[in-house]
């Protein structure tokens, strides 16, 4: 106990050194893990029960867009609170991007090979299936994969993982969706050795919390498992979560203020009196997975899997040619654009914004009228001489940007408990991935055709060839659902092997693991782009990367209740393929200086597990070096769309995590969770500015971004909670969550000598350009309650959770500085902000039998 107090003292000292703000730590509580269903498997008993667990009954709105990282709760109070409560404020554990967490299904890595991110929406709505997941936060021993610096999650989708019986639930909410119906059933293991499970759900909102956000999502899951004999089990799982979702856009504070609403959404507008969104995501990417488990002996097993993931991912957007920008919040349509030059016009626009919904939102009818009126003849259409096509040429269309996927993967995992002291794991995963990118016309908006030319390339050549997106068919006439613009494939092949040894000597446990991987990627395009006829079509040169990783860790058991663990990892990994090409839609130029990312990470943890008090305290330190950064935007200085790329972008993540859970009485539990980090840019990268339509390099600049904070997340978060569990199967609780150190994501180009060239350091504009905006601290109160009944063989449960009880609608959780900027007036293109939703609720009634 003395050691425990000493450590607490040390940690408090650390707060006061590292954190300027003094945080009051009181006890708090968690709302999860009622009955964690751990499938006991003698081989899988987690030897060091640190921050791993299988998740409990948490029901939450996991399906908001941008779901990232670990949102499912787990038994570790820090991890579950971070996911369940802090997730609403965009908190990220240790400030990591999602690629630092390895997500697996039945032991097979499913992180996207181009981005490194796992797409949680791929199994959204399958909560009854995905609740059987194993989560580790941070570096740890892992018997199925090397894992990432942020940890790993393994979702078990075997038929036998679902509880026998039926489960049906209905939920009412006001977040992304209003209604959810879910049904799950399993036969359990039948006499013939078969086990069948099924789950399906539907979630729907005509309009979610944010105006103009339609939501319709289905999900289906089916699994069949056959126990051939005591040694062999085979399982086939099929699942997907088809989703159609009208997205929320974010805007400048000026637009929010004019609309009188911090959830103003510029993506929708009225068409013939009906709300229509221009930005609709539509995904359907089924996964088929075959898994064979071979228990070679009592001490060893071999699991092999083969899976295929395929389908469509698309998002719509407005496109236009030879006409004005249809987006209502385009900067020239806002009063501020005229504030100095034409106050009368500014006043007129202010009134229109406040009173006319068709000014504030997309005016769909006007887009139709413009198309109706654009009779036009395309001469030599489709490259056929003399083929003159006359008709209504759409000026405005809705296009769908597709990023389809085809991914074949296979993996083998071998585990062997050599003896009581030694445990060996090894595995291999192979993945062949194709990302298929193209655009189609989703809606011609009353026109007859779309002409597939690039209007911004008209001045590049006097013979007109540069405007052609596909030079084999110049002046291409595009009808509904036809492809245009670009049509290319990114292929990635990856082979990855890992091995791990765990060794246990009395009070000390060790593990060490290594990983080797080989990644190759390349681009192929069917079309030659008129701007880059030389390097746009065909298959590009393959890029090869050989990477490795090593990790080690040790646990010292002070006694049966107190542990100290230390973990370290060094890892290299291939550059993010998604941004390795400067402008993959038009050409195969790579970012200069493409190199592997290097990650060095370590943490020290103290864990105490007493009957009435459980706690974990962690210090971590992580360097992520040599990342790429790439965006395309309109550059004011060059008056052109540019590709802005940086290499050698380094990040530093350091901080502390603390979670305490204590039972005051048998009924009353208090929890306290505290996270304080410093998540910083840690280098002065070199930026290359390239003219998008000619690949001319306009400039190389040093970006003075070192020690700027990563934006869009609270770097400090705390939660205090209380939970009361009644004797008659009911519970209720509340959490007080506090967020601080939230910054806007900085625009690198504002931190260059060139951007500041016209100012002396004493000029206030100097600071306006380089200052990073810190957003206000805020607190949010959450409430939840539940009750369950058992009537004969029927279990009935009712849960409610209310987020943001005080309806705080002014808590900006993040945002970004616009990349387009004017160094002489940084407020000309002001930042865009996102706000925490006001009061939302989730009410669920479930029946199990």
């Amino acid at each position: 106990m003395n050691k425990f107090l000493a450590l607490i003292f040390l940690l408090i000292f650390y707060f006061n050194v590292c954190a300027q703000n003094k945080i009051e730590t009181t006890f708090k509580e968690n709302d999860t893990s009622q009955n964690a269903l751990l499938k006991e498997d003698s081989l899988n008993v987690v030897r060091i029960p640190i921050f791993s667990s299988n998740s409990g009954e948490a029901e939450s709105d996991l399906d908001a867009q941008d779901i990232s990282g670990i949102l499912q709760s787990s038994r570790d109070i820090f991890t579950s609170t971070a996911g369940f409560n802090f997730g609403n404020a965009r908190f990220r554990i240790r400030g990591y991007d999602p690629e630092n967490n390895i997500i697996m299904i039945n032991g097979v890595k499913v992180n996207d090979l181009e981005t490194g991110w796992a797409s949680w929406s791929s199994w959204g709505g399958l909560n009854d299936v995905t609740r059987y997941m194993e989560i580790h936060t941070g570096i740890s021993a892992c018997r199925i994969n090397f894992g990432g610096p942020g940890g790993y999650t393994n979702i078990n989708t075997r038929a036998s993982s679902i509880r026998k019986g039926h489960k049906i639930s209905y939920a009412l909410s006001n977040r992304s969706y209003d209604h959810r119906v879910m049904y799950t059933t399993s036969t359990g293991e039948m006499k013939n050795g078969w086990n069948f499970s099924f789950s399906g759900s539907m979630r729907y909102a005509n309009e979610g919390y944010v105006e103009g956000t339609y939501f319709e999502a289905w999900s289906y899951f089916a699994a069949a498992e056959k126990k051939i004999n005591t040694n062999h089990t085979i399982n086939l799982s099929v699942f997907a979560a088809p989703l159609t979702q009208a997205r929320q856009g974010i805007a400048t504070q000026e637009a929010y203020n004019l609309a009188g609403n911090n959830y103003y959404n510029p993506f929708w507008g009225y068409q013939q009196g009906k709300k229509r969104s221009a930005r609709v995501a539509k995904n359907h990417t089924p996964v088929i997975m075959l898994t064979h488990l071979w228990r070679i002996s009592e001490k060893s097993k071999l699991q092999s899997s083969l899976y295929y993931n395929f389908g469509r991912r698309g998002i719509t957007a407005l496109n236009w040619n030879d006409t004005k920008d249809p987006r209502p919040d385009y900067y020239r349509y806002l009063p501020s654009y005229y504030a100095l030059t034409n106050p009368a016009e500014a006043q007129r626009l202010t009134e229109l914004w406040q009173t006319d919904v068709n000014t504030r939102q997309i005016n769909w009818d006007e887009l139709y009228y413009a198309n109706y009126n654009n009779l036009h003849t395309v001469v030599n259409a489709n490259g056929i001489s003399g083929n003159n096509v006359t008709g209504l040429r759409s000026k405005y269309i809705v296009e769908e940007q597709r990023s389809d996927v085809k991914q074949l993967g296979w993996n083998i995992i071998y585990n062997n408990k050599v003896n009581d002291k030694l445990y060996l794991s090894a595995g291999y995963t192979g993945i062949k991935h194709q990302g298929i990118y193209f655009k189609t016309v989703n809606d011609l908006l009353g026109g007859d055709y779309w002409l597939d030319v690039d209007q911004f390339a008209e001045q590049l050549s006097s013979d007109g060839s540069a405007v052609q997106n596909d030079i084999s068919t110049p002046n291409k006439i595009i009808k509904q659902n036809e492809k245009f613009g670009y049509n290319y494939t990114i292929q990635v092949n990856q082979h990855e092997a890992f091995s791990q040894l765990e060794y246990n000597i009395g009070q000390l446990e060790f593990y060490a693991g290594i990983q080797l991987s080989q990644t190759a990627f390349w681009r192929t395009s069917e079309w030659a782009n008129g701007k880059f006829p030389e390097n746009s079509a065909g298959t590009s040169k393959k890029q090869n990367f050989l990477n490795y990783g090593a990790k080690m860790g040790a646990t010292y058991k002070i006694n049966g209740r107190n542990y100290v663990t230390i973990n370290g990892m060094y890892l290299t990994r291939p550059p993010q393929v998604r941004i390795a090409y400067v402008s993959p839609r038009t050409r195969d130029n790579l970012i200069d200086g493409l190199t592997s990312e290097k990650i060095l990470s370590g943490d020290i943890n103290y864990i105490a597990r007493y009957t009435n008090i459980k706690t974990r305290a962690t210090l971590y330190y992580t360097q992520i070096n040599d990342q790429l950064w790439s965006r395309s935007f309109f550059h004011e200085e060059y008056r052109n769309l540019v590709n802005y790329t940086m290499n050698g972008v380094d990040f530093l993540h350091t901080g502390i995590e603390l979670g305490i859970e204590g039972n005051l009485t048998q009924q009353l539990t208090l929890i306290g969770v505290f996270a304080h980090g410093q998540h910083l840019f840690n280098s002065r990268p070199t930026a290359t500015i390239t003219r998008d339509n000619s690949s001319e390099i306009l400039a190389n600049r040093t970006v003075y971004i070192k020690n700027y904070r990563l934006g869009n997340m609270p770097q400090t978060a705390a939660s205090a909670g209380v939970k009361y569990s009644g004797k008659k199967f009911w519970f209720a609780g509340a959490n007080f969550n506090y967020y601080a150190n939230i910054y806007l994501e900085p625009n690198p180009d504002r931190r260059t000598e060139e951007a500041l060239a016209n100012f002396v350091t004493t000029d206030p504009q100097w600071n306006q350009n380089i200052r990073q905006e810190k957003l206000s601290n805020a607190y949010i109160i959450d409430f939840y309650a539940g009750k369950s009944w058992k009537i004969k063989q029927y279990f009935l449960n009712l849960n409610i959770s209310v987020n943001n009880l005080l309806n705080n609608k002014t808590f900006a959780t993040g945002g970004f500085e616009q990349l387009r900027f004017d160094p002489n007036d940084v407020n000309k293109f002001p930042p865009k902000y996102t706000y925490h939703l006001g009061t939302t609720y989730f009410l669920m009634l479930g029946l199990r039998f």
Partner: protein
Amino acid sequence: MKNIQYFSHLLLALTVLISSCKREWDAPPPREIPVGHILSIDSLKNLFTGTPVRFTSDYSVYATVTADEQDGNLYKNIFVQDATGAINLRLMTSGGVYKGDSIRIYLKGTVLSAYNGMLQLDSVDVNKNIIKQAVQKNVSPMVITDVNQINTSMQSRLIKLENVEFVTNEIPNTWANATNQQSANRTLTDCNGNTVIVRTSGYANYAGLQIPQGNGSLVAIVGVFNSTIQLYVRSLAEVQMSAPRCTGNPATIYLQKNFEDNSISSGGWIVKQVAGTSAWTSSIFNGNYFAKASSYNSGDASCETWLISPAIDLSNSTTPGFNFLNAANYSGPNLEVYISTNYDGVSAPNTATWIAVPVTLSSGGFNWVNSGDIPLTAYKVANVRIGFKYTGTTSVAKTWEVDDIIVKEY
């Protein structure tokens, strides 16, 4: 088995449900834009009496588009014409109207005004003010053979000039400055020596191409800038100037130097320093490069620097000559210009014989003047060189600038 059937039924049902979910949108019915009172272009222009006229009621003009923005020479700017006249339309946003479009212009919301002598219909919203009737109804240009016939009453009309050519001095030039995207004026002449300006935007997609050297026809819109006529070419394809020039010969240029490559020595030019340190260098002002010399504040007790042309072969010429532009400021010795036929291109200038030629010099204030044509008929040999001699001291020094040197057949 029963279970498998059960699952397959469920899956089938779900598939049907999912595929049946597509939101459909009603297209709005066409919007009727009233015609109102119909005006001819001539009567429209007559409404302008010196102050802008904003249309607030229903008027329409029927016309055909004669020039659009496709080549980049015009921006937010098109020309239309009917039987009675032609006018310039200023668009609120670029694009959407093309040459040959037969349109109705709904005037409500637009403004009739004048800009430097040019009548224009301003604030035209293509999506609201222009209703297309038909496409590919091309207007034939009015044919003009005597440049003197062009006058301001023809403003905004489409014309076709025949038997014209660019003046010899302009021949090496491009249509405009494509690098800095600056507009340029080029002088066009008929065989009687009547001239007119052709103005081209630096954003035109042919701005960086050399203007044609021959004689022929050109289709353009008549523009007016105060009292000056300037023509706007609407499409490079309509510039057909490859026939022999008025003289019957192709333009013969023996040597040309405009310093636009920011190099003093490109093309074989040499700088010879006789005394002091200040030398001829390439310099820039307002986007134009030229050669410049000044010894002011150089510390040179005396300065003499020569800019000497490469050897010019005039042995087969008929009536050769040259001219150049020069500008000066401050006070000091004047620029001197010499001809030599025996300079070796390497040694000090005083090793050769140089004959001074009289030229027109700038009076100061950095005003550019033309030197006047200097005949070279006395030097029809193979090794002719032109030398520009600058002299000055650190305290008594004029700044001299030289540009657009051209040696040609007259």
